[in-house]
Protein backbone atom coordinates (compact mmCIF):
# COMPACT_ATOMS: atom_id res chain seq x y z
CA UNK A 1 0.00 0.00 0.00
CA UNK A 2 1.27 3.47 -0.81
CA UNK A 3 1.55 4.86 2.73
CA UNK A 4 2.73 8.21 1.44
CA UNK A 5 -0.51 8.84 -0.44
CA UNK A 6 -2.77 7.10 2.04
CA UNK A 7 -1.59 9.32 4.90
CA UNK A 8 -0.81 12.39 2.79
CA UNK A 9 2.80 12.40 3.99
CA UNK A 10 4.93 15.47 3.45
CA UNK A 11 8.65 15.97 3.99
CA UNK A 12 10.46 19.29 4.47
CA UNK A 13 13.85 20.35 5.75
CA UNK A 14 17.04 18.45 6.20
CA UNK A 15 19.04 17.43 9.20
CA UNK A 16 20.61 14.60 11.14
CA UNK A 17 17.43 13.93 13.12
CA UNK A 18 14.05 13.08 11.56
CA UNK A 19 11.01 14.46 13.38
CA UNK A 20 7.66 12.83 12.67
CA UNK A 21 4.90 15.33 13.47
CA UNK A 22 1.58 13.78 14.47
CA UNK A 23 -1.35 16.12 15.09
CA UNK A 24 -4.05 15.61 17.70
CA UNK A 25 -7.80 15.14 17.54
CA UNK A 26 -9.77 17.69 15.54
CA UNK A 27 -6.91 18.84 13.39
CA UNK A 28 -4.79 17.85 10.47
CA UNK A 29 -1.11 18.46 9.68
CA UNK A 30 -1.85 22.09 8.84
CA UNK A 31 -1.70 22.65 12.58
CA UNK A 32 2.09 22.33 12.40
CA UNK A 33 2.44 25.19 9.96
CA UNK A 34 3.73 27.56 12.64
CA UNK A 35 6.13 25.22 14.38
CA UNK A 36 7.36 23.30 11.35
CA UNK A 37 9.24 26.23 9.71
CA UNK A 38 11.05 26.84 13.00
CA UNK A 39 12.24 23.22 13.09
CA UNK A 40 12.90 22.49 9.44
CA UNK A 41 16.20 24.35 9.33
CA UNK A 42 17.65 21.97 11.85
CA UNK A 43 15.74 18.73 11.30
CA UNK A 44 14.16 16.63 8.59
CA UNK A 45 10.41 17.06 9.17
CA UNK A 46 7.84 14.42 8.18
CA UNK A 47 4.17 15.31 8.67
CA UNK A 48 1.06 13.30 7.76
CA UNK A 49 -2.72 13.09 8.17
CA UNK A 50 -4.58 10.25 9.85
CA UNK A 51 -6.97 8.36 7.61
CA UNK A 52 -10.31 10.17 7.90
CA UNK A 53 -8.82 13.64 8.24
CA UNK A 54 -7.14 16.27 6.12
CA UNK A 55 -5.74 15.09 2.81
CA UNK A 56 -5.48 11.40 3.75
CA UNK A 57 -7.20 8.90 1.48
CA UNK A 58 -10.61 8.41 3.08
CA UNK A 59 -11.26 5.29 0.98
CA UNK A 60 -8.95 3.46 3.41
CA UNK A 61 -11.20 4.37 6.33
CA UNK A 62 -12.45 1.31 8.20
CA UNK A 63 -14.94 1.63 11.06
CA UNK A 64 -13.58 -1.31 13.00
CA UNK A 65 -9.91 -0.51 12.47
CA UNK A 66 -10.28 3.07 13.69
CA UNK A 67 -12.72 2.39 16.53
CA UNK A 68 -9.77 2.48 18.94
CA UNK A 69 -6.36 4.13 18.99
CA UNK A 70 -4.75 0.80 18.06
CA UNK A 71 -5.71 1.27 14.42
CA UNK A 72 -4.17 4.73 14.38
CA UNK A 73 -1.06 3.33 16.09
CA UNK A 74 -0.71 0.69 13.36
CA UNK A 75 -0.82 3.50 10.81
CA UNK A 76 1.76 5.53 12.71
CA UNK A 77 4.09 2.51 12.68
CA UNK A 78 3.77 2.35 8.88
CA UNK A 79 4.25 6.11 8.52
CA UNK A 80 7.35 6.11 10.77
CA UNK A 81 8.89 3.15 8.96
CA UNK A 82 8.18 4.81 5.63
CA UNK A 83 9.65 8.07 6.93
CA UNK A 84 12.94 6.30 7.66
CA UNK A 85 15.82 8.33 9.09
CA UNK A 86 17.80 7.77 12.30
CA UNK A 87 17.65 9.03 14.91
CA UNK A 88 13.90 9.40 14.57
CA UNK A 89 11.76 11.32 17.05
CA UNK A 90 7.99 11.55 17.34
CA UNK A 91 6.45 14.93 18.05
CA UNK A 92 2.91 14.01 19.04
CA UNK A 93 0.27 16.53 19.97
CA UNK A 94 -2.48 15.53 22.39
CA UNK A 95 -3.91 12.11 21.48
CA UNK A 96 -1.01 11.49 19.12
CA UNK A 97 1.33 11.29 22.10
CA UNK A 98 -0.73 8.26 23.21
CA UNK A 99 -0.92 6.87 19.68
CA UNK A 100 2.89 7.14 19.66
CA UNK A 101 3.07 5.31 22.97
CA UNK A 102 1.03 2.44 21.51
CA UNK A 103 3.07 2.42 18.30
CA UNK A 104 6.33 2.19 20.27
CA UNK A 105 4.85 -0.70 22.25
CA UNK A 106 4.06 -2.53 19.00
CA UNK A 107 7.50 -1.86 17.52
CA UNK A 108 10.12 -1.21 20.20
CA UNK A 109 12.77 1.08 18.79
CA UNK A 110 10.33 2.75 16.40
CA UNK A 111 11.34 6.17 17.74
CA UNK A 112 14.51 7.14 19.59
CA UNK A 113 12.65 9.73 21.65
CA UNK A 114 9.14 11.09 22.08
CA UNK A 115 8.12 14.72 22.39
CA UNK A 116 4.61 14.88 23.82
CA UNK A 117 2.71 18.14 23.52
CA UNK A 118 -0.20 18.24 25.97
CA UNK A 119 -0.48 14.46 26.44
CA UNK A 120 -3.23 12.82 28.45
CA UNK A 121 -3.35 9.07 29.09
CA UNK A 122 -6.96 9.27 30.28
CA UNK A 123 -9.45 12.11 29.96
CA UNK A 124 -11.96 10.61 32.35
CA UNK A 125 -11.95 10.99 36.11
CA UNK A 126 -11.67 7.47 37.47
CA UNK A 127 -11.16 6.74 41.15
CA UNK A 128 -8.28 8.85 42.39
CA UNK A 129 -7.19 9.75 38.90
CA UNK A 130 -8.34 13.19 37.69
CA UNK A 131 -8.38 13.20 33.90
CA UNK A 132 -10.53 16.31 33.99
CA UNK A 133 -13.77 15.05 32.44
CA UNK A 134 -16.80 12.96 33.18
CA UNK A 135 -18.58 10.71 30.73
CA UNK A 136 -21.38 13.29 30.33
CA UNK A 137 -18.81 15.88 29.16
CA UNK A 138 -17.62 13.54 26.41
CA UNK A 139 -21.22 12.98 25.31
CA UNK A 140 -21.66 16.75 25.20
CA UNK A 141 -18.58 17.05 23.01
CA UNK A 142 -20.01 14.41 20.67
CA UNK A 143 -23.21 16.47 20.50
CA UNK A 144 -21.28 19.64 19.70
CA UNK A 145 -19.30 17.80 17.03
CA UNK A 146 -22.49 16.45 15.53
CA UNK A 147 -24.22 19.82 15.35
CA UNK A 148 -21.15 21.57 13.95
CA UNK A 149 -19.90 19.02 11.46
CA UNK A 150 -23.34 18.91 9.91
CA UNK A 151 -22.83 22.27 8.30
CA UNK A 152 -19.33 21.23 7.37
CA UNK A 153 -20.15 18.06 5.56
CA UNK A 154 -19.71 17.51 1.86
CA UNK A 155 -20.83 20.19 -0.52
CA UNK A 156 -21.58 22.86 2.04
CA UNK A 157 -18.34 24.63 2.81
CA UNK A 158 -18.26 26.40 6.14
CA UNK A 159 -18.59 30.13 5.85
CA UNK A 160 -15.15 30.71 7.20
CA UNK A 161 -13.86 34.15 6.43
CA UNK A 162 -10.55 34.13 4.66
CA UNK A 163 -7.35 35.16 6.30
CA UNK A 164 -6.60 38.22 4.16
CA UNK A 165 -2.84 37.97 4.54
CA UNK A 166 -2.68 34.18 4.03
CA UNK A 167 -5.37 33.22 1.50
CA UNK A 168 -3.72 29.88 0.59
CA UNK A 169 -3.69 28.89 4.25
CA UNK A 170 -7.37 29.63 4.63
CA UNK A 171 -8.18 27.49 1.61
CA UNK A 172 -6.11 24.62 2.94
CA UNK A 173 -7.66 24.68 6.38
CA UNK A 174 -11.20 25.21 5.20
CA UNK A 175 -10.87 22.13 3.04
CA UNK A 176 -9.21 20.09 5.70
CA UNK A 177 -12.09 20.58 8.09
CA UNK A 178 -14.71 20.23 5.40
CA UNK A 179 -13.42 16.85 4.43
CA UNK A 180 -13.92 15.34 7.85
CA UNK A 181 -16.95 13.12 7.88
CA UNK A 182 -19.01 13.76 11.08
CA UNK A 183 -19.28 10.03 11.78
CA UNK A 184 -15.50 9.66 11.48
CA UNK A 185 -14.94 12.66 13.76
CA UNK A 186 -17.33 11.23 16.35
CA UNK A 187 -15.62 7.82 16.28
CA UNK A 188 -12.19 9.42 16.62
CA UNK A 189 -13.53 11.53 19.50
CA UNK A 190 -14.76 8.39 21.26
CA UNK A 191 -11.45 6.58 20.69
CA UNK A 192 -9.58 9.63 21.95
CA UNK A 193 -11.58 10.72 24.96
CA UNK A 194 -12.80 7.34 26.20
CA UNK A 195 -9.42 5.63 25.79
CA UNK A 196 -7.30 4.79 28.80
CA UNK A 197 -3.55 4.36 28.36
CA UNK A 198 -2.49 4.84 31.97
CA UNK A 199 -1.19 1.28 32.14
CA UNK A 200 0.84 1.72 28.95
CA UNK A 201 2.91 4.66 30.24
CA UNK A 202 5.65 2.64 32.00
CA UNK A 203 6.32 0.73 28.77
CA UNK A 204 7.88 3.84 27.24
CA UNK A 205 11.59 3.32 27.85
CA UNK A 206 13.10 5.85 25.43
CA UNK A 207 13.51 9.49 26.56
CA UNK A 208 10.31 11.52 26.54
CA UNK A 209 9.85 15.28 26.75
CA UNK A 210 6.45 16.42 27.98
CA UNK A 211 5.59 19.95 26.88
CA UNK A 212 2.91 21.12 29.26
CA UNK A 213 0.88 24.32 28.91
CA UNK A 214 0.45 26.25 32.13
CA UNK A 215 -3.31 26.39 31.56
CA UNK A 216 -4.88 23.63 29.50
CA UNK A 217 -8.33 22.24 30.29
CA UNK A 218 -7.87 19.28 27.91
CA UNK A 219 -4.56 18.22 29.46
CA UNK A 220 -4.22 19.82 32.91
CA UNK A 221 -0.87 20.29 34.64
CA UNK A 222 -1.43 17.39 37.07
CA UNK A 223 -1.91 15.05 34.10
CA UNK A 224 1.32 16.19 32.45
CA UNK A 225 3.15 15.68 35.73
CA UNK A 226 1.71 12.19 36.02
CA UNK A 227 2.88 11.32 32.49
CA UNK A 228 6.42 12.60 33.06
CA UNK A 229 6.72 10.68 36.34
CA UNK A 230 5.30 7.43 34.99
CA UNK A 231 7.21 6.94 31.74
CA UNK A 232 10.66 5.48 32.32
CA UNK A 233 12.65 8.52 31.27
CA UNK A 234 10.40 11.59 31.29
CA UNK A 235 11.22 15.28 31.37
CA UNK A 236 8.49 17.85 32.03
CA UNK A 237 8.83 21.35 30.63
CA UNK A 238 6.23 23.98 31.37
CA UNK A 239 5.17 26.44 28.67
CA UNK A 240 3.60 29.73 29.63
CA UNK A 241 0.51 29.23 27.54
CA UNK A 242 -3.27 29.22 27.88
CA UNK A 243 -4.90 26.55 25.76
CA UNK A 244 -4.30 23.14 24.30
CA UNK A 245 -2.26 24.07 21.22
CA UNK A 246 1.03 25.66 22.33
CA UNK A 247 2.62 24.63 19.01
CA UNK A 248 0.26 27.15 17.44
CA UNK A 249 0.07 29.86 20.06
CA UNK A 250 3.69 29.82 21.32
CA UNK A 251 5.62 28.06 18.53
CA UNK A 252 8.93 29.77 19.32
CA UNK A 253 8.87 28.59 22.92
CA UNK A 254 8.05 25.06 21.72
CA UNK A 255 10.90 25.08 19.21
CA UNK A 256 13.36 26.31 21.83
CA UNK A 257 12.38 23.50 24.23
CA UNK A 258 12.61 20.88 21.49
CA UNK A 259 16.03 22.12 20.35
CA UNK A 260 17.44 22.15 23.85
CA UNK A 261 16.05 18.72 24.66
CA UNK A 262 17.24 17.03 21.49
CA UNK A 263 20.70 18.59 21.74
CA UNK A 264 21.02 17.03 25.16
CA UNK A 265 19.24 13.73 24.55
CA UNK A 266 20.44 12.85 21.05
CA UNK A 267 23.76 14.70 20.78
CA UNK A 268 25.84 14.68 17.61
CA UNK A 269 28.21 11.72 17.86
CA UNK A 270 31.84 12.74 18.44
CA UNK A 271 34.05 11.52 15.67
CA UNK A 272 37.35 10.07 16.85
CA UNK A 273 40.23 12.18 15.56
Amino acid at each position, binding site marked *: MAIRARNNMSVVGDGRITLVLANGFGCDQTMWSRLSPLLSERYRIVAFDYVGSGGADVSHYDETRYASLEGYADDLVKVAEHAGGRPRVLVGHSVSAMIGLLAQKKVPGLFDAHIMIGPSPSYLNEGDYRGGFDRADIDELLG*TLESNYLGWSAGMAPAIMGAPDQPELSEELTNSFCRTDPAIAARFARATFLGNNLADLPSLQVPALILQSSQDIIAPLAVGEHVSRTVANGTLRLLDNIG*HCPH*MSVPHACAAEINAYLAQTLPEPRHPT
Partner: protein
Amino acid sequence: MTTEPADDWCDLAPCGLMLTDSSGTILRANAQFCQSLGYRALPQPGAPTFQSLLSMGGRMFHQTHWQPLLEMQSAVMEVKFDFLHAEGHRVPMVINARVLTLESGQVVHSIAAFAATDRDRYEQALLKAKSEAESLLRERTDLEQQASERSLFAEQLIGIVSHDMRNPLTAIRMGTEMLVMKDSDPGQLKIAERINQSVDRALALIEDMLDFTLTKTGRSLDVERVAIDLHDVADAAIEELRWSFPRITLTHVSEGDGLVWGDSSRLTRVIGNLVANAYRYGDSSHPVTVTTRVHGGRVRLDVHNMGPPIAPSLIPLLFKAMSRGSSSHGGGVGLGLYIVSQIAAAHDGTPYITSTAEDGTRIGIEFPLKPALPAV
Protein backbone atom coordinates in the same frame (compact mmCIF):
# COMPACT_ATOMS: atom_id res chain seq x y z
CA MET B 1 -20.23 49.35 32.51
CA THR B 2 -18.78 52.29 30.68
CA THR B 3 -21.02 54.92 29.20
CA GLU B 4 -19.12 55.61 26.00
CA PRO B 5 -21.44 56.12 23.03
CA ALA B 6 -19.91 53.14 21.19
CA ASP B 7 -20.97 50.87 24.03
CA ASP B 8 -24.49 52.26 24.00
CA TRP B 9 -24.66 51.51 20.33
CA CYS B 10 -23.46 47.98 20.94
CA ASP B 11 -26.07 47.55 23.64
CA LEU B 12 -28.80 48.26 21.09
CA ALA B 13 -27.66 45.41 18.81
CA PRO B 14 -30.04 42.42 18.63
CA CYS B 15 -27.14 39.99 19.03
CA GLY B 16 -24.50 39.33 21.63
CA LEU B 17 -21.21 41.13 21.09
CA MET B 18 -18.02 40.47 22.98
CA LEU B 19 -14.35 41.40 22.92
CA THR B 20 -11.81 39.07 24.51
CA ASP B 21 -8.04 38.98 24.53
CA SER B 22 -6.30 36.21 22.60
CA SER B 23 -6.58 33.79 25.50
CA GLY B 24 -10.33 34.32 25.84
CA THR B 25 -10.40 36.68 28.83
CA ILE B 26 -13.51 38.83 28.45
CA LEU B 27 -12.74 42.52 27.91
CA ARG B 28 -16.25 43.73 27.11
CA ALA B 29 -19.68 42.23 26.51
CA ASN B 30 -22.81 44.05 25.36
CA ALA B 31 -26.17 44.00 27.14
CA GLN B 32 -27.65 41.38 24.83
CA PHE B 33 -24.80 38.92 25.49
CA CYS B 34 -25.14 39.34 29.27
CA GLN B 35 -28.92 39.17 29.12
CA SER B 36 -29.08 35.96 27.07
CA LEU B 37 -26.96 34.22 29.69
CA GLY B 38 -28.66 35.77 32.71
CA TYR B 39 -25.81 38.02 33.82
CA ARG B 40 -26.08 41.68 34.81
CA ALA B 41 -22.60 42.20 33.45
CA LEU B 42 -19.63 40.27 32.08
CA PRO B 43 -16.92 39.39 32.99
CA GLN B 44 -17.84 38.05 36.41
CA PRO B 45 -15.55 36.30 38.89
CA GLY B 46 -17.23 33.01 38.01
CA ALA B 47 -17.22 33.77 34.28
CA PRO B 48 -13.93 35.42 33.40
CA THR B 49 -13.39 33.98 29.93
CA PHE B 50 -15.38 33.24 26.81
CA GLN B 51 -14.73 29.50 27.21
CA SER B 52 -15.89 29.53 30.85
CA LEU B 53 -19.37 30.38 29.50
CA LEU B 54 -19.45 27.15 27.49
CA SER B 55 -20.64 23.68 28.48
CA MET B 56 -17.79 21.26 29.19
CA GLY B 57 -18.25 19.56 25.81
CA GLY B 58 -18.29 23.00 24.24
CA ARG B 59 -14.99 23.84 25.93
CA MET B 60 -13.41 20.71 24.47
CA PHE B 61 -14.65 21.64 21.03
CA HIS B 62 -13.42 25.19 21.62
CA GLN B 63 -9.92 23.90 22.42
CA THR B 64 -9.68 21.26 19.72
CA HIS B 65 -11.39 23.03 16.83
CA TRP B 66 -12.49 26.61 17.32
CA GLN B 67 -9.33 28.06 18.84
CA PRO B 68 -6.92 26.41 16.33
CA LEU B 69 -9.17 27.53 13.45
CA LEU B 70 -9.27 31.06 14.77
CA GLU B 71 -5.49 31.12 15.20
CA MET B 72 -4.82 29.84 11.71
CA GLN B 73 -7.48 31.70 9.78
CA SER B 74 -8.10 34.78 11.89
CA ALA B 75 -11.83 34.12 11.62
CA VAL B 76 -14.41 31.42 12.25
CA MET B 77 -18.06 31.68 11.29
CA GLU B 78 -21.22 29.78 12.16
CA VAL B 79 -20.08 27.53 14.94
CA LYS B 80 -22.83 26.50 17.32
CA PHE B 81 -22.01 26.26 21.01
CA ASP B 82 -24.08 25.40 24.05
CA PHE B 83 -23.60 28.24 26.54
CA LEU B 84 -24.26 27.92 30.26
CA HIS B 85 -26.93 30.26 31.58
CA ALA B 86 -26.23 31.76 35.00
CA GLU B 87 -29.15 29.67 36.27
CA GLY B 88 -27.61 26.47 34.95
CA HIS B 89 -29.54 25.65 31.79
CA ARG B 90 -28.07 25.51 28.29
CA VAL B 91 -28.47 28.26 25.71
CA PRO B 92 -27.52 27.33 22.16
CA MET B 93 -25.96 30.20 20.22
CA VAL B 94 -24.26 30.51 16.85
CA ILE B 95 -20.91 32.27 17.01
CA ASN B 96 -18.99 34.32 14.49
CA ALA B 97 -15.56 35.51 15.50
CA ARG B 98 -12.55 37.27 14.05
CA VAL B 99 -9.12 38.20 15.24
CA LEU B 100 -8.34 41.95 15.32
CA THR B 101 -5.15 43.79 16.12
CA LEU B 102 -5.87 47.04 17.96
CA GLU B 103 -3.88 50.21 17.39
CA SER B 104 -2.12 49.50 20.66
CA GLY B 105 -0.86 46.27 19.11
CA GLN B 106 -3.04 44.11 21.33
CA VAL B 107 -4.59 41.11 19.62
CA VAL B 108 -8.27 40.68 20.47
CA HIS B 109 -11.10 38.40 19.45
CA SER B 110 -14.30 40.09 18.30
CA ILE B 111 -17.20 37.74 18.85
CA ALA B 112 -20.86 37.92 17.80
CA ALA B 113 -23.42 35.51 19.26
CA PHE B 114 -26.86 34.83 17.79
CA ALA B 115 -29.66 33.09 19.67
CA ALA B 116 -30.27 29.71 18.05
CA THR B 117 -32.85 28.02 20.24
CA ASP B 118 -35.34 27.34 17.46
CA ARG B 119 -32.62 26.45 14.99
CA ASP B 120 -31.15 24.09 17.55
CA ARG B 121 -34.51 22.43 18.17
CA TYR B 122 -35.02 21.99 14.44
CA GLU B 123 -31.52 20.59 13.99
CA GLN B 124 -31.98 18.18 16.87
CA ALA B 125 -35.15 16.93 15.19
CA LEU B 126 -33.25 16.53 11.93
CA LEU B 127 -30.44 14.66 13.64
CA LYS B 128 -32.94 12.40 15.37
CA ALA B 129 -34.68 11.67 12.09
CA LYS B 130 -31.34 10.99 10.45
CA SER B 131 -30.31 8.60 13.16
CA GLU B 132 -33.69 6.82 12.94
CA ALA B 133 -33.33 6.52 9.18
CA GLU B 134 -29.83 5.14 9.62
CA SER B 135 -31.00 2.59 12.14
CA LEU B 136 -33.81 1.48 9.80
CA LEU B 137 -31.30 1.16 6.99
CA ARG B 138 -29.00 -0.90 9.21
CA GLU B 139 -31.91 -3.16 10.13
CA ARG B 140 -32.81 -3.62 6.49
CA THR B 141 -29.23 -4.32 5.50
CA ASP B 142 -29.00 -6.92 8.26
CA LEU B 143 -32.20 -8.61 7.11
CA GLU B 144 -31.01 -8.66 3.52
CA GLN B 145 -27.74 -10.13 4.61
CA GLN B 146 -29.50 -12.84 6.60
CA ALA B 147 -31.80 -13.62 3.67
CA SER B 148 -28.88 -13.87 1.31
CA GLU B 149 -26.98 -16.11 3.71
CA ARG B 150 -29.98 -18.39 4.06
CA SER B 151 -30.40 -18.56 0.32
CA LEU B 152 -26.72 -19.32 -0.21
CA PHE B 153 -26.95 -22.02 2.43
CA ALA B 154 -29.98 -23.57 0.70
CA GLU B 155 -28.14 -23.61 -2.60
CA GLN B 156 -25.08 -25.17 -1.04
CA LEU B 157 -27.29 -27.76 0.63
CA ILE B 158 -28.78 -28.70 -2.73
CA GLY B 159 -25.26 -29.16 -4.02
CA ILE B 160 -24.15 -31.32 -1.11
CA VAL B 161 -27.26 -33.51 -1.07
CA SER B 162 -27.19 -33.95 -4.85
CA HIS B 163 -23.58 -34.98 -4.77
CA ASP B 164 -24.13 -37.48 -1.97
CA MET B 165 -27.17 -39.01 -3.70
CA ARG B 166 -25.10 -40.03 -6.70
CA ASN B 167 -23.38 -42.95 -4.99
CA PRO B 168 -26.48 -44.78 -3.64
CA LEU B 169 -28.24 -44.29 -6.99
CA THR B 170 -25.29 -45.73 -8.86
CA ALA B 171 -25.30 -48.67 -6.43
CA ILE B 172 -29.02 -49.26 -7.08
CA ARG B 173 -28.40 -49.27 -10.81
CA MET B 174 -25.53 -51.76 -10.56
CA GLY B 175 -27.48 -53.93 -8.12
CA THR B 176 -30.51 -54.08 -10.42
CA GLU B 177 -28.35 -55.11 -13.35
CA MET B 178 -26.65 -57.82 -11.30
CA LEU B 179 -30.04 -59.15 -10.11
CA VAL B 180 -31.30 -59.75 -13.65
CA MET B 181 -27.95 -60.69 -15.18
CA LYS B 182 -28.89 -64.36 -15.57
CA ASP B 183 -32.62 -63.81 -15.54
CA SER B 184 -34.62 -64.32 -18.71
CA ASP B 185 -38.07 -63.74 -17.25
CA PRO B 186 -39.51 -60.97 -19.44
CA GLY B 187 -41.52 -59.60 -16.47
CA GLN B 188 -38.40 -59.29 -14.26
CA LEU B 189 -36.42 -57.71 -17.08
CA LYS B 190 -39.19 -55.16 -17.63
CA ILE B 191 -39.16 -54.20 -13.95
CA ALA B 192 -35.36 -53.91 -13.95
CA GLU B 193 -35.51 -51.68 -17.02
CA ARG B 194 -38.05 -49.39 -15.36
CA ILE B 195 -35.91 -49.14 -12.23
CA ASN B 196 -32.92 -48.22 -14.34
CA GLN B 197 -34.85 -45.61 -16.28
CA SER B 198 -35.99 -44.03 -13.03
CA VAL B 199 -32.47 -44.08 -11.66
CA ASP B 200 -31.19 -42.50 -14.88
CA ARG B 201 -33.74 -39.71 -14.57
CA ALA B 202 -32.76 -39.16 -10.97
CA LEU B 203 -29.08 -39.03 -11.96
CA ALA B 204 -29.87 -36.53 -14.73
CA LEU B 205 -31.73 -34.41 -12.22
CA ILE B 206 -28.70 -34.53 -9.92
CA GLU B 207 -26.44 -33.33 -12.74
CA ASP B 208 -28.84 -30.41 -13.28
CA MET B 209 -28.92 -29.58 -9.59
CA LEU B 210 -25.14 -29.65 -9.31
CA ASP B 211 -24.83 -27.34 -12.30
CA PHE B 212 -27.56 -25.12 -10.88
CA THR B 213 -25.66 -24.83 -7.59
CA LEU B 214 -22.48 -24.07 -9.46
CA THR B 215 -23.98 -21.21 -11.47
CA LYS B 216 -26.03 -19.87 -8.57
CA THR B 217 -22.95 -19.56 -6.40
CA GLY B 218 -21.44 -17.24 -8.93
CA ARG B 219 -19.35 -19.58 -11.04
CA SER B 220 -19.90 -20.54 -14.65
CA LEU B 221 -20.26 -24.00 -16.09
CA ASP B 222 -17.08 -25.67 -17.21
CA VAL B 223 -17.21 -26.02 -20.95
CA GLU B 224 -14.46 -27.42 -23.10
CA ARG B 225 -15.02 -26.49 -26.71
CA VAL B 226 -13.28 -28.85 -29.08
CA ALA B 227 -13.95 -29.88 -32.69
CA ILE B 228 -16.83 -32.37 -32.74
CA ASP B 229 -19.38 -33.62 -35.23
CA LEU B 230 -22.62 -32.31 -33.80
CA HIS B 231 -24.76 -34.57 -35.96
CA ASP B 232 -22.97 -37.63 -34.58
CA VAL B 233 -23.25 -36.33 -31.03
CA ALA B 234 -27.01 -35.88 -31.51
CA ASP B 235 -27.39 -39.35 -33.04
CA ALA B 236 -25.65 -40.94 -30.07
CA ALA B 237 -27.73 -38.93 -27.61
CA ILE B 238 -30.97 -39.83 -29.36
CA GLU B 239 -30.04 -43.49 -29.37
CA GLU B 240 -29.67 -43.42 -25.59
CA LEU B 241 -32.81 -41.37 -25.11
CA ARG B 242 -34.85 -43.94 -27.03
CA TRP B 243 -34.17 -46.31 -24.14
CA SER B 244 -35.29 -43.77 -21.57
CA PHE B 245 -38.38 -42.62 -23.47
CA PRO B 246 -39.60 -45.74 -25.27
CA ARG B 247 -43.11 -44.32 -25.70
CA ILE B 248 -42.19 -41.40 -27.95
CA THR B 249 -40.91 -41.44 -31.48
CA LEU B 250 -37.60 -39.59 -31.69
CA THR B 251 -36.31 -38.41 -35.05
CA HIS B 252 -33.20 -36.50 -35.99
CA VAL B 253 -32.95 -33.88 -38.75
CA SER B 254 -29.44 -32.65 -39.56
CA GLU B 255 -28.47 -29.80 -41.87
CA GLY B 256 -25.04 -28.66 -43.00
CA ASP B 257 -21.59 -29.94 -42.12
CA GLY B 258 -21.61 -31.19 -38.51
CA LEU B 259 -18.13 -29.86 -37.61
CA VAL B 260 -18.52 -27.44 -34.72
CA TRP B 261 -16.50 -26.42 -31.68
CA GLY B 262 -18.50 -27.50 -28.68
CA ASP B 263 -18.58 -29.56 -25.52
CA SER B 264 -20.14 -32.88 -26.52
CA SER B 265 -21.24 -33.93 -23.03
CA ARG B 266 -22.83 -30.52 -22.36
CA LEU B 267 -24.61 -30.55 -25.74
CA THR B 268 -25.82 -34.09 -25.01
CA ARG B 269 -27.30 -32.68 -21.80
CA VAL B 270 -29.07 -29.99 -23.81
CA ILE B 271 -30.69 -32.65 -26.00
CA GLY B 272 -31.55 -34.77 -22.96
CA ASN B 273 -33.16 -31.92 -21.06
CA LEU B 274 -35.10 -30.70 -24.10
CA VAL B 275 -36.37 -34.19 -25.01
CA ALA B 276 -37.39 -34.79 -21.39
CA ASN B 277 -39.24 -31.52 -21.54
CA ALA B 278 -40.95 -32.44 -24.83
CA TYR B 279 -41.94 -35.77 -23.34
CA ARG B 280 -43.32 -34.14 -20.22
CA TYR B 281 -45.33 -31.33 -21.80
CA GLY B 282 -45.86 -32.39 -25.43
CA ASP B 283 -48.32 -34.62 -27.21
CA SER B 284 -46.55 -37.98 -27.28
CA SER B 285 -48.70 -39.26 -30.16
CA HIS B 286 -46.62 -37.02 -32.45
CA PRO B 287 -42.91 -37.55 -33.06
CA VAL B 288 -40.38 -35.45 -31.24
CA THR B 289 -37.73 -34.05 -33.60
CA VAL B 290 -34.17 -33.12 -32.73
CA THR B 291 -32.67 -30.71 -35.27
CA THR B 292 -28.96 -29.95 -35.61
CA ARG B 293 -28.26 -27.21 -38.10
CA VAL B 294 -24.91 -25.66 -38.96
CA HIS B 295 -25.10 -22.74 -41.33
CA GLY B 296 -23.19 -19.49 -41.91
CA GLY B 297 -20.95 -19.85 -38.88
CA ARG B 298 -23.91 -20.35 -36.52
CA VAL B 299 -25.10 -23.53 -34.87
CA ARG B 300 -28.69 -24.28 -33.95
CA LEU B 301 -29.65 -27.23 -31.81
CA ASP B 302 -33.32 -27.61 -30.96
CA VAL B 303 -36.10 -30.04 -30.10
CA HIS B 304 -39.60 -29.78 -31.54
CA ASN B 305 -42.83 -31.31 -30.33
CA MET B 306 -46.53 -30.88 -30.98
CA GLY B 307 -48.97 -30.24 -28.18
CA PRO B 308 -50.62 -27.39 -26.31
CA PRO B 309 -48.67 -24.11 -26.77
CA ILE B 310 -46.84 -22.41 -23.93
CA ALA B 311 -48.63 -19.29 -22.70
CA PRO B 312 -46.76 -16.18 -23.99
CA SER B 313 -46.63 -14.81 -20.46
CA LEU B 314 -44.63 -17.82 -19.30
CA ILE B 315 -42.05 -17.72 -22.08
CA PRO B 316 -39.75 -15.09 -20.51
CA LEU B 317 -39.67 -17.14 -17.31
CA LEU B 318 -38.87 -20.51 -18.82
CA PHE B 319 -35.10 -20.23 -18.77
CA LYS B 320 -35.07 -19.12 -15.16
CA ALA B 321 -34.47 -21.69 -12.46
CA MET B 322 -37.43 -23.18 -10.58
CA SER B 323 -40.09 -22.03 -13.03
CA ARG B 324 -42.29 -24.52 -14.79
CA GLY B 325 -44.59 -24.34 -17.78
CA SER B 326 -47.39 -26.14 -16.09
CA SER B 327 -47.96 -27.82 -12.80
CA SER B 328 -50.37 -30.39 -14.23
CA HIS B 329 -47.51 -32.57 -15.43
CA GLY B 330 -45.37 -34.44 -12.96
CA GLY B 331 -41.62 -34.72 -12.60
CA GLY B 332 -38.71 -32.32 -12.54
CA VAL B 333 -38.11 -29.25 -10.44
CA GLY B 334 -37.83 -26.79 -13.35
CA LEU B 335 -34.06 -26.85 -13.67
CA GLY B 336 -33.81 -28.40 -17.13
CA LEU B 337 -34.30 -25.27 -19.23
CA TYR B 338 -32.21 -23.18 -16.85
CA ILE B 339 -29.29 -25.56 -17.40
CA VAL B 340 -29.91 -25.40 -21.16
CA SER B 341 -29.64 -21.62 -21.06
CA GLN B 342 -26.45 -21.81 -18.96
CA ILE B 343 -24.88 -24.23 -21.44
CA ALA B 344 -25.89 -21.86 -24.26
CA ALA B 345 -24.22 -18.98 -22.42
CA ALA B 346 -21.08 -21.03 -21.85
CA HIS B 347 -20.95 -21.52 -25.65
CA ASP B 348 -21.30 -17.72 -26.15
CA GLY B 349 -24.85 -18.36 -27.35
CA THR B 350 -28.47 -17.87 -26.37
CA PRO B 351 -31.51 -20.08 -25.91
CA TYR B 352 -34.63 -19.58 -28.03
CA ILE B 353 -38.21 -20.70 -28.03
CA THR B 354 -41.24 -20.58 -30.34
CA SER B 355 -44.60 -22.04 -29.42
CA THR B 356 -47.93 -22.01 -31.28
CA ALA B 357 -50.92 -24.36 -31.44
CA GLU B 358 -50.45 -24.92 -35.20
CA ASP B 359 -46.69 -25.39 -35.39
CA GLY B 360 -46.02 -26.84 -31.96
CA THR B 361 -43.18 -25.92 -29.63
CA ARG B 362 -39.51 -25.58 -30.58
CA ILE B 363 -36.90 -24.92 -27.90
CA GLY B 364 -33.18 -24.83 -28.50
CA ILE B 365 -29.92 -22.98 -28.38
CA GLU B 366 -27.95 -21.03 -30.93
CA PHE B 367 -24.23 -20.39 -30.69
CA PRO B 368 -21.29 -19.43 -32.89
CA LEU B 369 -19.49 -22.27 -34.65
CA LYS B 370 -16.19 -21.37 -33.03
CA PRO B 371 -15.42 -19.66 -29.75
CA ALA B 372 -14.56 -15.98 -30.08
CA LEU B 373 -10.82 -15.33 -30.02
CA PRO B 374 -9.73 -14.03 -26.65
CA ALA B 375 -9.09 -10.30 -26.67
CA VAL B 376 -5.37 -9.50 -26.73
